[in-house]
């Protein structure tokens, strides 16, 4: 397994793990965030920032694979 695979996993998995693992602790209405009850704001917030985390994973992937391009990949 190439090393770039593991590197990109970290930012990519962060929103998934945070969203799901946080649910038992955020099952509440307060505080209200932008008019949304906290539980809904939590889920929506992670969905909204996921592209940023995946974008970071994409860049990590690309920079490491560019370094490996020499071996014909």
């Amino acid at each position, binding site marked *: 397994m190439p090393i770039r695979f593991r590197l990109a996993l970290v930012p990519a998995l962060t929103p998934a793990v945070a*969203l799901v693992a946080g649910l038992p602790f955020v099952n509440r209405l307060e505080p209200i965030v932008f008019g949304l009850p906290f539980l809904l704001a939590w889920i929506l917030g992670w969905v909204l920032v996921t592209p940023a985390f995946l974008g970071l994973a994409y860049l990590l992937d690309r920079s490491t694979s560019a370094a490996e391009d020499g071996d014909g990949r």
Partner: protein
Amino acid sequence: MTTPLLVILAFILVSTVVGVIGRGRGAMNLERWSVGGRQFGVILVWLLMAGEIYTTFTFLGASGWAYSRGAPSFYILAYGTIGYIISFFLLPPLWRMAKSLGLHTQPDFFLARYNSPALAGLVALIGVVSIVPYLQLQLAGLGLIVHTASGGAIASEVAIIVAFALTCVFVYTSGLQGIAWVAIIKDITMVVVVVIIGIGLPSMYFGSVGQMLSELVRRHPSHLTFPGGTTTMGVGWVISTILLTGVGFYCWPHMFASAFSAKDERTIKRNAVIMPLYQLPILLVFFVGFTALLVMPGLKNPDTALLALVMRSYPAWFAGLVGGAGAVTAMVPASMLLLVASTLTAKNIYRPLRGGAVSEEQLMRASRGFMLLIAVVALILALWSPNELVKLLIFGYDGIAQFFPGIVLGVFVRRITARPVIFGLVAGEAVVVSLIWSGHDPFLGMNAGFVGLLVNALVTLLSATWGQVLNHRKIHDPRPDPIT
């Protein structure tokens, strides 16, 4: 004939015409009919994928659950994101394998990777069976739209039969290429409509979305936290359902195969990055469901909440437009699912059983025959075994998510062989079916499909390890380990 119904029919007619024009000229064969001649540009491919993401389920099912269940429906907002994150890592190697081995369908992958016709046939069969409730969902949704738009004048049974006829005509005339063009109309109208009603309806009755939400919290204090309007769908159910459906997202035969048609790996990854934003309209659909709960409580069928509220709040022509968008939103995915299911049946079940001596022409005919058969089964289920739209989709996910261990191990672990995957798959499906049929879903607070997936993964890993131990003791396999 009411005004909304007329607008809906006009909408469907225009879409069908676009579908017929979009399919282009030339003779039809199985390749062209089912995979669009394998010449789809990247944009068309991804439009088709988006076409799969916004279905009647998003439109009516999500608002229906927001209306009746409240917070448990939030899983719908979350699971796609998990699916896209998995796809970022899973689809590129899959795409490479598909390209080098010339794979077309999901069972093709299992056949090429595991060299087991039995496993490939099993995957095809489970895929088709799981697509049936998904199809039933689209037919039932389309039936609801016609029924509600007629002001109840058309009985829902008749409406479902009309929906079935419309879908069959559409798929026979258009084929995949035609459907892809209609998907464009569908997505644009869908997003425009959802933005208008998702913000418009709460504002119309309560001044703003925020005020609608605080009114909802005042009147139904427990609706917006788990388990919402249910007794069984607590945090455990939501987490297990998000994981099950997120993992299952790309296990659907059509989603899985969609990766095969992309131009290159980079396209796949870039799309995975932006796809989570595709989930945002679902939030607006929730708002419509919440508003409906406050304005029109006590609806007999929660899945009609969105349409009923729109019919009550907007002029008839606009209600017709919403219904029309909803109708096409059911027909496009229904047609795609029918195409995929019939192609799987013809290519990966019927042909191997016939011993391979099947001509392209026979295959095409068989495929069309299976299409009608599968559609009729979905129709019968929609008429005699009605269920909530969201429940139907979860049933489908319970089935196809069981492919996940076989896919992931197949892609990333070279040593895994067919037998452990078959054992796991059969064990997982057996657990799911017995839990649901004996009324134990949710089981210990968890989604039955997720319990099945756990058993599946455990059985696969244990039998893989056990198989290796046996191999070492008895056979002394002379082949070199491919990993080293």
